[in-house]
């Protein structure tokens, strides 16, 4: 297992270098960075001077190394479209996205696991028979369609919840939060539901099928025969043994929550990093695109490593193996 972890760390490093390279190539070779920075009237000499000053005449590897060290210290240059440092832009937008993703992740995991366990145990109850087809629709609905339907029902028809923006936010230091005001929380409901629904359905279906398999095994029968309380059998014995595949999927899915937040943020005009990224793709704002890519890749790699460590906690059998 330790070897496997080292292998995974190596893979993580490979991913980061690869994404960094793509971002770097984007940054330096798509279009001419100089003409993106200066006006029409700048003379050829001035352009050459700027090129020399920015080090664009240096060898390829030297430039890549500089890009890497800048990226690590959070310096991604200046946005073409907004004329502000990319790091500031991202720092402003980050809290919105992280709060949205975190809320959705908690909702999806808690409800997904609970519903999965319930439908796994009470396979033939009418609640299960209602939830299962609904969950199939849940995994078939594209995220933005869920968002549009929710807006239509809860904002347009019923007028209960706001349909765009973050509503009221409270500033704590450099972090703006939705959690402290009623308005902020209300604004969070629709976007986080939209983002959570798909993952919830997916987690639920997975937990259910894993539970069904585990409940058939002999040790569950023995646990029941020993007269243990159903709650102990279901959560202590059965659920625990479904955790490894469930953790894998949850880990992967928190990653896709970050990716799908781009869509949710567009539907709800949620001022997060995803919206910034989409705007940068539409405008060809390469510094922002590059920065977002590197940041997202870093998050994914981090999540993957955390998932590997969680395996060890969830399944003691894996700890002993070399």
């Amino acid at each position, binding site marked *: 297992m330790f070897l496997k972890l080292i292998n995974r760390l190596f893979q993580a490093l490979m991913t980061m270098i690869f994404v960094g390279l793509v971002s770097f190539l984007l940054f330096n070779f*798509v279009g001419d960075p100089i003409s993106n920075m200066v006006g029409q009237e700048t003379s050829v000499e001035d352009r050459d001077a700027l090129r020399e000053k920015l080090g664009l005449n240096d060898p390829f590897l030297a430039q890549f190394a500089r890009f890497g060290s800048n990226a690590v210290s959070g310096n991604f240059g200046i946005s073409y479209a907004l004329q502000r440092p990319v790091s500031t832009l991202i720092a402003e937008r980050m809290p919105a996205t992280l709060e949205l993703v975190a809320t959705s992740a908690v909702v999806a995991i808690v409800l997904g696991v609970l519903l999965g366990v319930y439908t796994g145990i009470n396979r033939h109850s009418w609640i299960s028979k209602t939830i299962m087809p609904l969950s199939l629709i849940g995994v078939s609905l594209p*995220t*933005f369609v869920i968002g549009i339907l929710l807006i239509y029902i809860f904002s347009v028809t019923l007028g209960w919840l706001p349909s765009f923006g973050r509503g009221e936010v409270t500033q704590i230091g450099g972090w703006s939060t939705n959690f402290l005001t009623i308005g902020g929380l209300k604004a969070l409901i629709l976007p986080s539901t939209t983002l959570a629904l798909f993952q919830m359905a997916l987690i639920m279906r997975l937990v259910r099928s894993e539970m069904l398999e585990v409940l058939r095994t002999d040790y569950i029968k023995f646990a029941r025969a020993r007269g243990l309380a159903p709650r102990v059998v279901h959560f202590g014995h059965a659920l625990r043994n479904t955790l490894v595949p469930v953790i894998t999927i949850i880990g992967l899915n928190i990653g896709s929550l970050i*990716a799908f937040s781009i869509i949710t943020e567009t539907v709800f005009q949620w001022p997060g990093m995803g919206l910034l990224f989409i705007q940068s793709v*539409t405008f060809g704002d390469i510094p922002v695109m590059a920065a977002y890519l590197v940041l997202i890749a870093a998050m994914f790699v981090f999540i993957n490593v955390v998932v590997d460590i969680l395996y060890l906690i969830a399944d003691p059998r894996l700890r002993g193996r070399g």
Partner: protein
Amino acid sequence: MTITPDSPPSRFNRFMDSDLMFSFLSSKLTVVSAIITLIFFVAAIFAPLVAPHRPFDPATIDLLDAFTPPVWAEYGDARFLLGTDDQGRDVLSTIIYGCRISLLVGFAAVGLSLLIGVGVGLLSGFYGGWLDTVFMRLADVQLTVPAILTALVIDGIADLFVPPSMRETLSIVVLILAIGLSDWPRYARVARSSTMVERNKEYVMAARVIGVGSFRIILRHILPNILGPILVMATIGLAIAITTEATLSFLGVGVPPTTPSLGTLIRIGNSFLFSGEWWITIFPSLALVLLVLAVNLLSDWLRDALNPKLR
């Protein structure tokens, strides 16, 4: 059962008698989704014949018809079953033409993924060694990031290389490339592992002994034997590709409004949701959901029906 040599059952009869057909007909949900899928396909292929209007011919649309609600609503117009959009185009017809673009992009993207994925998988599995390492590391890296994000980035980068005047005409090609390139690793993994199993079987040995070349073995002997599970994946892949296309178009980086796909239609209609013209965006959304759901159900069934463990 004995079959007399003078009256062999026709291919059609054999197909109707097969296990696959039996399992198909015994699941009502599957039959319904097959019919829905078929309706979508037929409508998309014969769009000019099926659609009641020609929504992209300026001569036939009238701005005075704009924002007509569906037939059953107040002020509905019998000519426009599902109402009209802001330019007076019949919503039902734009949906039918939209399906055409969505399915075209979907099929082409899956085809591209299959071509790359199966190609890479066959080579990796058959030759192994450094080729395998390079390909699979590349697949690992790409699988770290969700396909939709990869597609978004490829689309964004490709657009920067296309001159602005060509963007509208090439956007569908760019989209197919982006979606196709984003989904190949899944196919590559399955193709590789099946190839590694097949490679050591006797028929491959036999072919080698009689001097058949490597490429011929790969294409004529191994490929047909690994195709089953890959085709099942491809049907799920079609649903994914259609969703991805719709999402990208909805985000405004996909198909342009001049030849809208379902995603573009939803994007256009979305801005009228608040002013009460809900039908412009809700009907294309429902069409998309119905199509994706039907394809998903079909692929679910196909996966179970072809799985020998469940028989």
